[in-house]
């Protein structure tokens, strides 16, 4: 189980103040669960994903907080330990997959590189395993002999998923895995992913800007805005409309995911400048329902029946109980 507590990421810039891309985020990803993480471009969701897997550039980013995988603290772990743990416990699938493969190595070799980094395998066994995994993602075994440029975007994405499974990790973080693909391919991959997750019993943190897509596959969805998770709710609740005005607005953008009709309602305004301290609710300037406290105090995180939310409006109306500080 992945447990994230008060995670903060500051980007250093050449000029002026650091930008706080992730502002004290806490959440958990339980075993065998499929969790979605959604938000607009620039909201910090990918940064969050990278921070969890400790892939951010140490020199340019300050990361603080706690990230624990099955009780082991990732952020302070030694490099050697971390390297061992990577991929065998926590794997990642990158956006688009276009550049996620070394262009000069065959697919097979890239699989083998990972396996060799984590143990001794006989070539024959490795080939067998790769073939099996490729079949799992509904690809031909022969694909292992191909170079990345010889594959289509959808194929590459499948290979990326197969690659993430090679050491049977407990958690897979998928960062916009389908963004560059067309809708049909996207659907096929998402379905396959869901199927794999159910069969192989790993956990998934699925990062995407496409709330509609996430709602279809995830059990639980976290909505991120301006570096913070503003709503963390079960998919069922969100499908009914959610509680946070931002979530609602996002849902409106995509229309009713269950209906054929798509209404595009843009959200006016732009996210705040994160190099300045945020006073009050970050979404307040764009929120149609904002009232006095919104611009003054940061809304506390309160529990809902199936999740949590940060919104004065909700607290006022439901009087939910605070979590944490």
């Amino acid at each position, binding site marked *: 189980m992945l447990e994230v507590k008060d995670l903060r990421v500051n980007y250093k*810039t050449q000029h002026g103040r650091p930008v706080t891309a992730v502002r004290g985020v806490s959440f958990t990803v339980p075993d065998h669960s499929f969790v979605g993480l959604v938000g607009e471009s620039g909201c910090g969701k*990918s940064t969050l994903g990278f921070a969890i897997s400790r892939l951010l550039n140490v020199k340019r980013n300050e990361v603080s907080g706690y990230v624990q995988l099955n009780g082991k603290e990732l952020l302070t772990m030694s490099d050697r330990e971390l390297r061992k743990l990577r991929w065998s416990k926590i794997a990642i699938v990158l*956006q688009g997959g276009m550049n996620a493969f070394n262009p000069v190595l065959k697919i097979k070799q890239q699989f083998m590189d990972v396996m060799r980094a984590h143990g001794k395998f006989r070539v024959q066994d490795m080939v067998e395993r790769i073939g099996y995994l490729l079949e799992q993602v509904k690809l031909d075994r022969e694909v292992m002999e191909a170079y990345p440029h010889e594959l289509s975007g959808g194929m590459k994405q499948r290979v990326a998923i197969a690659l993430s499974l090679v050491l049977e990790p407990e958690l897979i973080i998928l960062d916009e895995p389908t963004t560059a693909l067309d809708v049909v391919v996207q659907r096929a991959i998402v379905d396959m992913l869901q199927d794999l997750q159910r069969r192989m019993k790993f956990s998934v943190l699925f990062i995407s800007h496409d709330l509609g897509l996430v709602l279809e596959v995830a059990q639980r969805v976290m909505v991120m805005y301006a570096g913070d998770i503003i709503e963390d709710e079960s998919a069922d609740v969100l499908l009914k409309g959610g509680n946070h005005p931002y979530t609602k607005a996002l849902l409106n953008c995509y229309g009713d995911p269950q209906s054929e009709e798509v209404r595009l309602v843009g959200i006016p305004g732009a996210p705040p400048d994160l190099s300045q301290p945020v006073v009050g609710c970050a979404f307040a300037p764009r929120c149609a329902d904002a009232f006095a406290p919104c611009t003054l105090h940061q809304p506390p995180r309160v529990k809902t029946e199936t999740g949590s939310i940060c919104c004065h409006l909700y607290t006022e109306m439901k009087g939910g109980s605070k979590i944490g500080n």
Partner: protein
Amino acid sequence: MVDKPSLTSHHEDSTSVQLTEKVRKNPHFLSLLWANPKARIGIIMLCFFFAMAIFGPFVAPYSLADTNFPTSQTPSIVHWLGTTQSGQDVLTELLYGARISLFVGFVAGAIVILIAMFVGFVAGYFGGWIDDMLSLLMNVILVLPGLPLMILIAAYMPSHGIGEIILVMSITGWAFGGRSLRAQMLTMVQQDYVIAAKFAGERPLRIIFYEILPNMLSYIVANFFGAVVGAVLAEAGLEFLGLGNPSITSWGTMIYWAQSSDAMLSGQWAWILAPGLCIAGLAAALTFVNFGIDAVANPRLQGE
């Protein structure tokens, strides 16, 4: 030369994207450049050389026409860098020489970049057979070894002077810039706003100059500086071989005179050392500025 990476980043969340946006639109490009330590060294050095070219003649200890000093002197208090075989003060020559060296470098660089822009833009914008032909031409010129080609052309030139040197360098030097600007143009024409402008029926010239050019400025400047470096070094090489006009005073002709007057034999190390250092310094200054431009334009090179 450094291969110019693409402007776009794959990590949307990274703030560097915002920086890149600033590069494109923010007028404070120079202040960003200044923030880069290497670029800062480069800019300071460059300012120094420009100051030398502008004010050199005013601060020079003697007049350039003054040829009545004892000849072939080694450095002394009176002549910091010694005197030449014809009784001129080496320091004075060095200060005056900055003008010609910078002039040749920057004029040749400007011509080179103009040709490169023209050919690169035409090839990249129009594509098709025009692109094929121009690309072939550029590749051919690129693989022909530059200096031997310059020597061959210069050898047949009836006379030698600044004009001829600039001409030779312009003929042979534009292909590198042309190729990289073409590549840049190729990615630019696929940008949405360019496609939109095309559909809106804007004329190619307008699209190139109003829509595309501003977004390519950092490339053009980098290529220009690269061309200047090439021109400064090539000028020195041609002058050294006696293919320039030795009656003018530039850093290249200074080395030419120093070696043809056996400066080494008479122990006048300063006469050889100083102009070479100036050439290297000028070229290095431009390279440093280019590092800075690169770093500002290319997020991956940042944060050093």
